[in-house]
């Protein structure tokens, strides 16, 4: 049990650190999305010369923002679920059901991880995006088109982080089933207000 507690808390530290980095990058992506779309509006209506890349660039940023920030919401209980049955059950049965449901979640994410990997490394990922380019020389004289795999990797990374979180939550429940929550590091609660489009 001590080993399980150490694994839970170790995985918690790892996830905490990874997700903190994810939140920072995700927040920057969200800010950049606004700048990119405002640039699109400015160039189209003020300069009268539409830019070719803002739409695809903002979608690229949105996908990464989603992939990097959704795992934080999951870890802090922000994914929408009906927890009425679980709350009505005795604690031990509820924890057991939570572990079972987490097992289904892990299975879904594990399959998604395999598919995501083959999508990113497969033929679809080798195609290029329509308008996105990055410099590949220091003097900015040579540019390459961004491969689609860079964008598709957003979902793969998101699934991988979700899987890590799901494993952590399942192990925490497993530990809590036998010993209760004593010794487990606390996960910060998500702020309930504003937890969806409502």
């Amino acid at each position: 049990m001590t080993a399980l507690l150490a694994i839970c808390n170790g995985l918690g530290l790892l996830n905490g650190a990874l997700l903190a980095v994810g939140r920072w990058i995700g927040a920057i992506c969200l800010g950049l999305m606004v700048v990119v779309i405002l640039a699109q509006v400015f160039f189209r209506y003020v300069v009268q010369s539409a830019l070719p890349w803002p739409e695809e660039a903002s979608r690229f940023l949105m996908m990464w923002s989603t992939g990097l920030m959704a795992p934080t919401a999951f870890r802090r209980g922000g994914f929408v679920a009906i927890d009425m049955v679980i709350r009505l059950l005795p604690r031990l049965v509820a924890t057991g059901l939570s572990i079972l449901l987490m097992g289904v979640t892990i299975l879904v994410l594990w399959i998604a991880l395999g598919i995501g990997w083959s999508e990113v490394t497969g033929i679809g990922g080798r195609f290029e995006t329509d308008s996105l380019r990055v410099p590949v020389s220091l003097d900015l004289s040579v540019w390459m088109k961004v491969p689609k795999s860079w964008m598709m990797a957003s979902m793969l990374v998101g699934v991988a982080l979700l899987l890590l979180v799901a494993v952590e939550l399942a192990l925490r429940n497993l530990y809590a089933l036998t010993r209760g929550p004593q010794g487990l590091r606390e996960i910060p609660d998500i702020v309930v207000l504003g937890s969806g489009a409502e």
Partner: protein
Amino acid sequence: MLSFFLPLFLVFLMLGLPVVFGLLAAPAILLWLNGQERDIVLLYRNVYEGMNSFPLMAIPFFMLAGELMNRGGISARIVGFAQAMVGHFRGGLAQVNVVDSMLFAGISGSAVADVSALGSIIIPQMEKKGYPKPFAAAITAASAIIGPIIPPSGIMIIYAYVMGESVAALFLAGIVPGVLIGIALMITIKLMADRYNLPQAQPRATWGDAARAGGAAFWPLMTPIILMGGILSGVFTPTEAAAVAVGYSFFISIFVLRTLTWRDIPGVLTRAGITSSVVMLLVGAAMAFKTVAALAHTPELLASTLLSITENPLLLLLLVNLLLFVVGMFLDAGPAIIILGPILGPIFASLGVDPVHFAVVMVVNLTVGLLTPPMGLVLFATSAVSGLRVETIARAVMPFLLVEFLVILLITYIPAISLTLPRLVGFVD
């Protein structure tokens, strides 16, 4: 076999599996049992393609704009303006509560944001003036649901995207129903004020006071005008309008009102990003779910079941309203729309119900569902703001809930309420 994905999904949902995983697990398991393992890859691709959409980007932008406005402290200005307008009515502060929700709806588009931003100001004020606290909390909750009905509205963007409708048409269609709910609540308050002897109103604001309150609220109140004006004049797409709303909220909060500092920005971006990532993932999963629903002919199967009960569209609309009301008790509006829209929308379209009208019926009904226990997000938010128990607010909100249900029936059976504005602008035939 594939048609069993819906019952399986419901079992997962009732047991407590997060909606997003249930939307994927149920069809994936049945595809696997059906020997269609290869199609599971299509589920993954549908989620990816479902999220990778330019129109959908309006959701994080509107959330960000709402977050900026909330943190930027505009709520007090809105309350001040509403007070100058209707504070002298009988039941004055309760009337103010409804009017500020209607004004705030044009800025944030979220009922929960409305409760958290306005409730924390108006509930203590009402209590101080002698209103019973449960009454103050109840009217705050009941009026907050106008948020996602009057544009902009996150829920309407989700519906428009999942069902392939025009965002602008839905935004326009929500204006009159939202105002109608507000007026119905104000009439109810007037009746209750006389009957229950609610506190006397404050004196009528002088022209000078009204002008000052209007001036203080001027910049925030320009947001809906810029948004809807930009969209309807064709200058912006809804997504661009949402980005402009973010830029505008940022500019006035930092430079004009000076209520927000640069230090607040990372927190604002993080909160909006986390919240919108949940919605984006849900919408992506819903697009995969929708594909499986179509493959399994679910809408057709449900349509034939519904039509076997009655073929009268008016009766079917009543039945669907009851279904939505019950669903709203257990599920938040966004996920409910994502799950039920693709199933119910085609059925009523085939019965001749205008898709925009049906969208408004769904959105209004499920938004009112945010007030119903056991899963009433707005009740939870109001409880957090007021410090009252959810059960206490749920009891106090009953008269307002009844009025809102009557308005839903009006919206259901008089399509002109929602369709006149989009028709005038040419979005609906």
